[in-house]
């Protein structure tokens, strides 16, 4: 049985699955239920300054896009930080932490970019016994209009400044939550590191309009005839999140900085992908909001079973394992040649590979051979682009097969070279680096 115990910047939890700061972690009732269901930790829904709490809209807060059978693929929300009084949240956090000492309890915080504000709230949080704090520099709607959330996360200097304050005024580990609504995620991560953050967590939600009501010509969710952009999350954002996590994981300036991976984690497999790309643990929200807290049981068993099967004993065995294999395009081996291969026994003859290739790619798949419906790759046309693999409805029916060095690439008429050669040295590259004499 694989050891799933997680130690993230000194914060211990029985497994690497935390609930992200969001509606599921809004109050003790939910968090208690989450811990009973098996979640390793929670990041309590973002606390604001003392005083009258924020108010939410009284209409719809969520919009969504769906896939097959109305399976939720992407969710967007316009909910703000907690709309409950600070003291109530603090009392409940303290009680929950006492009830569940083995679970991680992190406080998400968002107060104005004023030193006194941070200085004021940090001791209050610390008093609850919380294991750490997460700085919400990501919320892209509502709060950002007030100079908080992503408005801070988009300015690296502010990030660095606030992190520095936090490190100064609390002993608790500081996790800086980043917004993806920025051109280069490495800049805010570097700033957080300069400020002394213990970790970064990402991604927060992405600016989005999930759909438009075509009867009323208004964005969804529509509140009294108008809509506002929201924050996008769920399975649809995972690829964006994975890339951003890997960017930070492999950036020389932030290399080794602990990362809590967030963004569309729905299954154990998603979680494993975040971990191997450099995340120390993962945070989940949409999956829980879609299916309830019980899904963590699938994540725990799936991750554990996969690790057992592969002989990985602990999370340390897998964290960051894929990072060395993430590189820049220019370093990809241009001498590697692959061809698509269709398993005729698995083929159901839907023809999608053919029409995708014929209409939109390289005309390398037959549709008819000797008058019979038959789909086969023409290796002399196939550039190995993988589109057919992706449109085929049958898993593993079409696979990419790498050609062994020394075999003939029928398309180019050249032998496959055994050596590695990339764009930086390619003769077609006007900027090619000339090999040292």
């Amino acid at each position: 049985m694989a050891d799933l115990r997680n130690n993230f910047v000194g914060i211990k939890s029985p497994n690497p699955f935390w609930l992200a700061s969001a509606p599921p972690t809004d109050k003790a009732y939910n968090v208690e239920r989450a811990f009973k269901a098996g979640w390793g930790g929670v990041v309590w829904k973002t606390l604001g300054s003392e005083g009258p709490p924020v108010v939410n809209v009284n209409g719809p807060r969520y919009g969504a896009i769906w896939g097959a059978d109305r399976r939720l693929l992407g969710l967007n929300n316009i909910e703000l930080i907690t709309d409950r009084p600070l003291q109530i949240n603090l009392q409940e956090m303290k009680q929950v932490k006492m009830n569940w000492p083995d679970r991680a309890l992190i406080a998400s915080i968002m107060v104005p970019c004023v030193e006194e504000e941070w200085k004021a709230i940090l001791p209050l949080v610390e008093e609850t016994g919380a294991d750490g704090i997460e700085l919400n520099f990501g919320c892209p709607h509502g709060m950002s209009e007030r100079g908080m959330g992503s408005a801070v996360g988009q300015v690296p200097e502010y990030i660095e400044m606030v992190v520095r304050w936090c490190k100064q005024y609390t002993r608790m580990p500081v996790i800086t939550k980043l917004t993806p609504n920025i051109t280069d995620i490495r800049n805010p991560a570097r700033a957080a590191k300069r400020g002394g953050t213990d970790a970064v967590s990402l991604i927060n939600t992405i600016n989005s309009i999930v759909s438009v009501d075509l009867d009323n010509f208004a964005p969804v969710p529509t509140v009294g005839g108008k809509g506002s952009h929201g924050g996008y999350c769920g399975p649809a954002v995972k690829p964006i999140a994975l890339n951003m996590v890997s960017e930070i994981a492999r950036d020389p300036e932030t290399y080794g900085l602990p990362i809590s991976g967030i963004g569309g984690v729905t299954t154990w497999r998603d979680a494993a992908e975040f971990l191997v790309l450099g995340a120390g643990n993962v945070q989940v929200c949409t999956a829980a909001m879609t299916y309830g807290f019980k899904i963590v049981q699938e994540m725990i068993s799936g991750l554990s079973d996969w690790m057992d099967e592969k002989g990985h004993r602990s999370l340390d065995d897998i964290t960051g394992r894929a990072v060395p294999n993430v590189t820049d395009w220019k370093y990809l081996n241009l001498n590697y040649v692959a061809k698509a291969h269709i398993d005729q026994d698995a083929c159901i003859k839907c023809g999608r590979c053919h029409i995708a290739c014929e209409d939109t790619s390289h005309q390398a798949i037959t549709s008819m051979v000797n008058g019979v419906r038959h789909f086969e790759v023409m290796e002399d046309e196939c550039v190995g682009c993988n589109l057919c693999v992706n449109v085929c409805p049958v898993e593993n029916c079409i696979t990419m097969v790498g050609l062994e060095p020394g075999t003939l690439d029928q398309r180019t008429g050249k032998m496959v070279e055994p050596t590695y050669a990339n764009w930086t040295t390619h003769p077609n590259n006007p900027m090619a680096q000339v090999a040292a004499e």
Partner: protein
Amino acid sequence: MHRLGSGIAGGRLAPAEYEQNFSDLHPRFDKHEALVASDRCYFCHDAPCMTACPTEIDIPLFIRQISTANPLGAARTIFSQNILGGMCARVCPTETLCEQACVRNTAEDRPVDIGRLQRYATDIAMEQNRQFFHRGAATGKTIAIIGAGPAGLACAHRLAMHGHTAVIFDAREKAGGLNEYGIATYKATDDFAQKEVDYLLAIGGIEIRNGQALGRDFSLQDLTADYDAVFLGIGLAGVNGLGLEGEELSGVNDAVDFIAFLRQADNKADVPIGRRVVVLGGGMTAIDAAVQAKLLGAEEVTICYRRGKEHMNASEFEQDLAASKGVTIRHWLAPKRILGKDGAVAGIELEYTALRDGHLVGTGETGVIAADQIFKAIGQSFKASGLGALAMEKGRIVVDDHCRTSMERVYAGGDCVNRGEDLTVSAVAHGRDAAEAIHSAFAVAGQPAVAVA
């Protein structure tokens, strides 16, 4: 009447049972069901389902239209190829046509529910009486159509689209042909066949003259003299006989008559049925008669077919349906003699059969099944008079790929021709294609003999 009373009698069931037994076999999908079902379609390239459809409906396109909340667009796609798409959705043996060809069968042994999705879209359009086609500008040409069945109706509609006028002659009281008289009641509930005729006629330019029989009220020659073209969609009016002792006994009936009578009966309790019923035959008609006999309250219904299961014309689905309703299907039994008592059927003697050297032979072993009613469903045959010298082959009208017969300006389609399977959907394809051929012939005839540069 008691449920198990002997002889042939109506009223074997309670009113509610009749209602339930003759309600819709497959209720229409609701929107959610349709979305779930449509999502299974892979939108195949050069889709096999489409090729398998005699009317070549663009199935992937209409299913995608359903999946994108555009059922009316889906209906337009269907009706543009098959104006009787509503009935075909109900009666097509999809399991041997589009759904058999569905690639999902290869993947998971369960095709996309094409038939039910087609019904979903067509029902919505027809309930809203949404008309997608308009009568073309009048051409002044009038075409006589004999038979208001699927072939004749499809032909008339397509002719109207091209601006021609169609006059349909039909011997029966109502239009619809087998859709009205030959389909099992539970497949076309709520008077669907007549609603479909009304929907189709709404295009205009189509006149139906009921009670007009070929050979009795007019001949083909009369029509060719009076009309610009003629389309024959006269079906198969004859019923094969057994040629056996006892066939004249009371209680020996043609299955097609029974099916038609039941369809037309306002109150199913008025339809008399035997306590023990034997149906002879192996096609859809045999199944429809047997299943409905059971649904009318027959205690015991047995289909006897002289060959094996694999030879039956009835689809596997239909056979399973019959079995699920409690019909017993027995194979390798050929009728020898119908036994009577007091002028009525008492049973049937059958002989076991076998295939020897490719020939069906009796084994000599016989047995008797008690029965008070026997339905003959051993095939329909071409029966018509007044056709003159029209070329025939194997008892069907000879036509080419454009539904042209041996006679100038005379076209034919549906069950009466020597082309395609005897299916509603094939008849629709013939009627539609014949209309296109007629239209093209007019266009060719209308061109000047010598082109001027």
